[in-house]
């Protein structure tokens, strides 16, 4: 590998060293789990919580996003449906998940933005 390639590899390694994990496990009952919306991405994109956990989405982009249940192709109905609007940077939306299950969601305005909340008694960290 020549010096030029090493520099490129170094840049990429340095910039990606801070990448968040793909899935994060957070406790449910004791408090709030958080999803940050930054650079048009839900971070983490998969969050594992216990039943009863409240998840808060926090917008760090200077643009409106939504937290909409399901996927653009398959939207839930009834009590499973929800939409929260994050108007701009600093806006938050919260939802409490009481039942075990897998809850996909997406941003209505930028439908490539997808995330999942997994609610499980065994999956959450202690």
């Amino acid at each position, binding site marked *: 590998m020549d010096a*030029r390639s090493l520099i490129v590899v170094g840049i990429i390694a*340095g910039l990606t060293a801070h990448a968040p994990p793909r899935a994060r496990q957070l406790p449910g009952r004791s408090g709030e789990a958080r999803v940050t919306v930054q*650079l048009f991405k839900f971070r983490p994109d998969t969050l594992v919580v216990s039943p009863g956990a409240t998840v808060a989405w926090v917008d760090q982009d200077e643009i409106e996003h939504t937290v909409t249940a399901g996927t653009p192709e398959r939207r839930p109905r009834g009590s499973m449906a929800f939409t929260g609007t994050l108007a701009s940077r600093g806006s938050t939306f919260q939802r409490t998940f009481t039942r075990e299950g897998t809850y996909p969601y997406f941003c209505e305005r930028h439908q490539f933005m997808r995330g999942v909340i997994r609610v499980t008694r065994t999956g959450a960290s202690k």
Partner: protein
Amino acid sequence: MNVITRITRLAAVGALALVGTAAIATPAAARPIAAAAAPVSAAELRTLLNTLLAEHVYLAAGATGAALGGRDAEFKAAAGALDANSVEISKAIGLVYGSDAETAFLALWRKHIGFVVDYTTGVATKNRMKQDKAVSDLVGYTQDFGAFLAAANPYLPKDVVAGLVKTHVLTLKEVIDAQGAKDASKAWMSARTAAMHMQMIANPLTDAILKQFPQKFSN
């Protein structure tokens, strides 16, 4: 085939071409600059961004010109090349801000190309409502684009970026309008103007990246 059917077909083909990059192979011999040589110096970064963004305009103009002229095969080829350019621009962003940013940027970037396809279809079919909707979508998109870069880089104010991208949208719109009016001379002169304007995006973007990561790029 009448003009509406033809453009509808072209738009469908275009949408597929723009979304389905996996189906579009870039010959190794024609591999674009970002894939061939990742920038390591400030000058290379500046050259890369200027080249890719100017190329974006010419390829877009080629695609819309072919679509409006009813040249199906040329349109498909131009749309494929345009998407390859989109991927390269996204890779350049990914080089600096990581793979998640690259993925999000590509989705956002393709979105504006989809709106350009909508506008071109509106021009071809003389559908004023479709044109207005596409322009409205494109103007709204400038806010998204500004927000993306503002989130990535503190030296890129959202409104400033949005304003620059709005000019990009308007200059490209002039190209398409001239193509729709069959005014080739105006279309190509407008394409030059639109391409030259891209340095107004590429240079501030380069400057902001260098300011944000001064140690990452050599002088």
